[in-house]
């Protein structure tokens, strides 16, 4: 039934949430849906859990769409979740992976923002929380994490697209993930997916110092982007956030890394053309398809390098 869903189209929040239920119904022994919290506007924050059993297995966290206007990421999230479910029991790599590792996948990480992109402003990036003393709405949830919070590459101006918020984890969308990962206690990898600069990056973003695991993270990124490029020739750059783009404080992957999640990566998916956030829906499946082998490289590496 999940395959009656059109993966080559963009969808509203309600359509994606309905599809999640369909996926769970189609794969009851593999996929379940859990709620980790509520958004600022009280929408449920849903996570798909892929698990074949066992208690507190090593886990991987995946998220898409923390920046709501990056529509190809939520769409890629839907495609990827379906791919995981469909390939289990058929593809030996995915089967082996899910026999040993749990995957938690938050497909719409910023549901208020995403709903707003459909109703009012297609180009909305932030959350929808009200900022005291300002008429400007929202916080950049990828500057709101407790890792160099408030430093370079984030703004103290609520009207800025990179406003870091009043304090670290002020956004319930962020705090819910923090609480979940901390309470789980066995998350070994985190991959946070954005668009559209074609990059694969890892800590640090808030400082130029190389991460203690820089060499291993860099080698794995190199392999991942190479395998990604092998699909359609899409070129990605890779490296630490600070080296690849610029100093950016308060990001998801820095927080994860500093809280013991060694394999912390952030993707910036396509635009191979000149569309930016308005990537045509015809590019959803190519984007997701080429991202898949890179994701799998990281997941398999995590499986094979326990720590």
């Amino acid at each position, binding site marked *: 039934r999940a395959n009656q869903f059109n993966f080559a189209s963009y969808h509203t929040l309600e359509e994606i949430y309905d599809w999640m239920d369909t996926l769970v119904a189609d794969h009851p022994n593999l996929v379940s849906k859990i709620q980790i919290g509520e958004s600022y506007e009280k929408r449920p924050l849903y996570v798909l859990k892929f698990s074949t059993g066992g208690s507190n297995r090593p886990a991987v966290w995946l998220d898409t769409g923390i920046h709501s206007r990056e529509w190809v990421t939520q769409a890629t999230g839907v495609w990827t979740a379906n791919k995981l479910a469909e390939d289990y029991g058929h593809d030996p790599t995915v089967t082996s992976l899910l026999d040993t590792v749990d995957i938690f996948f938050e497909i719409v990480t910023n549901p208020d923002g995403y709903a707003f992109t459909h109703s009012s402003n297609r180009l909305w990036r932030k959350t929808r929380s009200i900022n005291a003393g300002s008429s400007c709405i929202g916080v950049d949830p990828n500057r709101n994490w407790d890792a160099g919070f408030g430093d370079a590459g984030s703004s103290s101006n609520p009207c800025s697209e990179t406003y870091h918020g009043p304090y670290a984890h002020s956004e319930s969308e962020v705090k819910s993930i923090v609480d979940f990962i901390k309470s789980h206690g066995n998350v070994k990898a985190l991959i946070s997916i954005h668009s559209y600069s074609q990059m694969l990056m890892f800590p640090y973003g808030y400082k130029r110092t190389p991460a203690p695991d820089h060499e291993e993270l860099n080698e794995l990124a190199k392999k991942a982007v190479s395998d990604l490029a092998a699909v359609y020739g899409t070129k990605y750059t890779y490296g630490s956030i600070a080296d*690849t783009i610029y100093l950016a404080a308060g990001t998801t992957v820095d927080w994860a890394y500093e809280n013991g999640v060694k394999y912390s990566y952030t993707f910036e998916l396509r635009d191979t053309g000149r569309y930016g*956030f308005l990537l045509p829906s015809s590019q959803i499946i190519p984007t997701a398809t080429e991202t898949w082998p890179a994701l799998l490289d990281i997941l398999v590496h995590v499986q094979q390098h326990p720590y």
Partner: protein
Amino acid sequence: EQLFVGDQVLRVVASSEEQIALLRALGEQVELQVDFWRDPTKPGRPADLRVPFSRLQAVKIFLESHGISYSIMIEDVQQLLDEEKRTMMLSRRMER
């Protein structure tokens, strides 16, 4: 609903750290309402700016006066948004 009629996205390529600093300063001028879709990072690497129609002239003058090269990446943002909506509507009709 916010409309973006006539808004353009400019692809800007800074040739030096000085020009990158200028672009960042441009982004901080609240009255220009520039929305960086892709931030300025390193010389030679493109940055993308969405500029409201009413501020286009001022932003282009700023870029030209500082010798910062640019091209128009998206001619009219609203046209693309309308196209996106049409595609989604079509997809829904096909699903039904």
